[in-house]
């Protein structure tokens, strides 16, 4: 008896559900057929997709990740982006989440905008570019006793686009000395034109989870994961003379910037003050000399705080900030770019301001 009831129940319910599904499937074919639609992103990338779904779900399917907390129900208001053409008028479900300026700028909630025709949208470059990359460690080079250069070849995706000065977050997997995965940020030191290469210059931090992993466990050929690019540190578009100040692994973003300047044949007058405690702690000096040859207005000034007697140093000595003070009389027309430890940056800001540099023309990347 029970078996019979169950059988009947299953049959009836299945029949009704199948009937409804059939109706929906037919409706889907006839009602939701909007044909192929073209989405133009930031005027450069074009996607052709089947119309009918929300913009958010279409973009997610194309692996373009727009932040969304509610999963497209129009209750979190996070999935904002600019739709320049083709979205139709603003929906009442979006209005509560947008202010007047956003409405004027054509900002929409991507979960509420349906793709029914060709669209032109604009996504923040950062949002568009940030993603996870798989990479293979291709080379590990000693630069000083506690700084190494790690070269990674991207495997999936195989290319990254970034402006020099950006950083990536390197994932440290669970290993002997750490029971959790952690991300650590490192500035990219490679040539942005070499799209499949990420160089990181890392200084060993005693007891540091990620640096210990990189120095003692990571081997050439190992696979790592990183995400990025992040950060606001970049050259301005002006022609103003630049003063760069860095120490230790703060070298990294400037290497990348120099590559870019070389690629674009930059004529900007640049003086790069790089500080180290001892001569043996200076690195990439040959590469810097090469950049001096390639870039007519670039000058590299290495400064050694306490050269050993046997080290035979005849360059600048003392703290990097002292050298800057000695060499520059008036920096009021310059821009300052700093990268290094918080102590060095704070000291450098004081000196640059004393030399007449406006504080809002000092750009820096502070390593916390």
């Amino acid at each position, binding site marked *: 008896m029970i078996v019979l009831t169950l059988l009947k129940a299953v049959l*009836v319910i299945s029949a*009704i559900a199948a009937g409804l599904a059939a109706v929906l499937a037919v409706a889907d074919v006839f009602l939701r057929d909007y044909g192929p639609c073209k989405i133009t992103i930031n005027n450069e990338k074009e996607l052709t997709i089947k119309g009918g779904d929300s913009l958010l779900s279409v973009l997610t399917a194309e692996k373009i990740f727009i932040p969304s907390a509610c999963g497209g129900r129009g209750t979190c208001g996070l999935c904002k982006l600019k739709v320049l053409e083709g979205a139709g008028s603003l929906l009442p479900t979006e209005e509560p989440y947008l202010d007047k300026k956003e409405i004027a700028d054509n900002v929409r909630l991507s979960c509420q905008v349906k793709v029914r025709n060709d669209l032109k949208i604009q996504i923040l470059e950062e949002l568009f570019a940030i993603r996870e990359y798989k990479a293979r460690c291709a080379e590990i080079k000693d630069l000083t006793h506690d700084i190494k250069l790690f070269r990674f070849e991207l495997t999936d995706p195989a290319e990254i686009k970034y402006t020099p000065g950006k950083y990536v977050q390197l994932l440290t997997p669970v290993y002997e000395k750490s029971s959790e995965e952690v991300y650590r940020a490192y500035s990219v030191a490679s040539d942005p034109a070499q799209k499949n290469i990420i160089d990181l210059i890392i200084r060993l931090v005693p007891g540091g989870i990620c640096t210990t992993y990189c120095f003692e466990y990571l081997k050439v050929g190992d696979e790592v994961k990183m995400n990025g690019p992040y950060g606001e540190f970049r050259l301005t578009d002006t022609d103003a003379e630049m003063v760069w100040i860095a120490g230790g692994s703060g070298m990294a973003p400037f290497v990348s910037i120099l590559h870019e300047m070389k690629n674009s044949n930059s004529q900007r007058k640049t003086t790069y003050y790089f500080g180290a405690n001892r001569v043996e702690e200076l690195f990439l000096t040959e590469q810097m000399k090469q950049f001096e040859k390639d870039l007519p207005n670039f000058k590299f000034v290495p400064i050694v705080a306490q050269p050993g007697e046997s080290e035979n140093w005849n360059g600048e000595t003392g703290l990097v900030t002292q050298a800057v003070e000695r060499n520059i009389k008036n920096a009021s027309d310059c821009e300052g770019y700093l990268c290094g430890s918080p102590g060095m940056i704070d000291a450098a800001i004081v000196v640059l301001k004393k030399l007449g540099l406006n504080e809002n023309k000092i750009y820096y990347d502070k390593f916390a």
Partner: protein
Amino acid sequence: MNISGEMTQAFIVCISAIFTNNILLSYFLGLCPFIGCSREMKASVGLGLAVIFVMTCTCVLNWLVYHLILVPYGLEFFRFIMFIIIIAAFVQFVEMAIERFSPYLYQRLGVFLPLITVNCAILGASLFMVIRDYTLIVTIGYGLGSGIGWFLAIFLMAGIRQKLSNDSIPKGLQGPGITLIIAGIMALAFIGFAGVLAGQ
């Protein structure tokens, strides 16, 4: 009972569903969209109209399925699942149809449909109509009345919240906090209708 008797009862049930037995303010069903979408009058009207429409239609559909299919086969215990499936399918279908045929209606009403697919007030109304053993005609009145009741509640709430938006509300109470308090006060006010209709 003859037709005119049923019509009278349907009318009474409809009125009582709007005021005395308001599905939102006395049963507290459908609170999620009530809180989420009551920031603006315009949005609340669209959502409210969508609820009226869907609630009336699904109550009728569910009545038909329940009495013509589930009862004859002795499968009343399956009504929960059945109702949910029917509501979901119906909402999906209507949304697709509106989107295709009337951009204007879609803009006003259609965008809210996905939000109420899982609105418990819709399922609640269908279940109540079964428990209370309404006839088809009374069910129409009940579905319509419950929808209008919900519409009324969210419309009033949106009006109040729009007024409140210029007031300074203590930080911890902003948003859902103050909305729930207002909902409570509104529910108390609606109790005042209790004596208006003795029967339902």
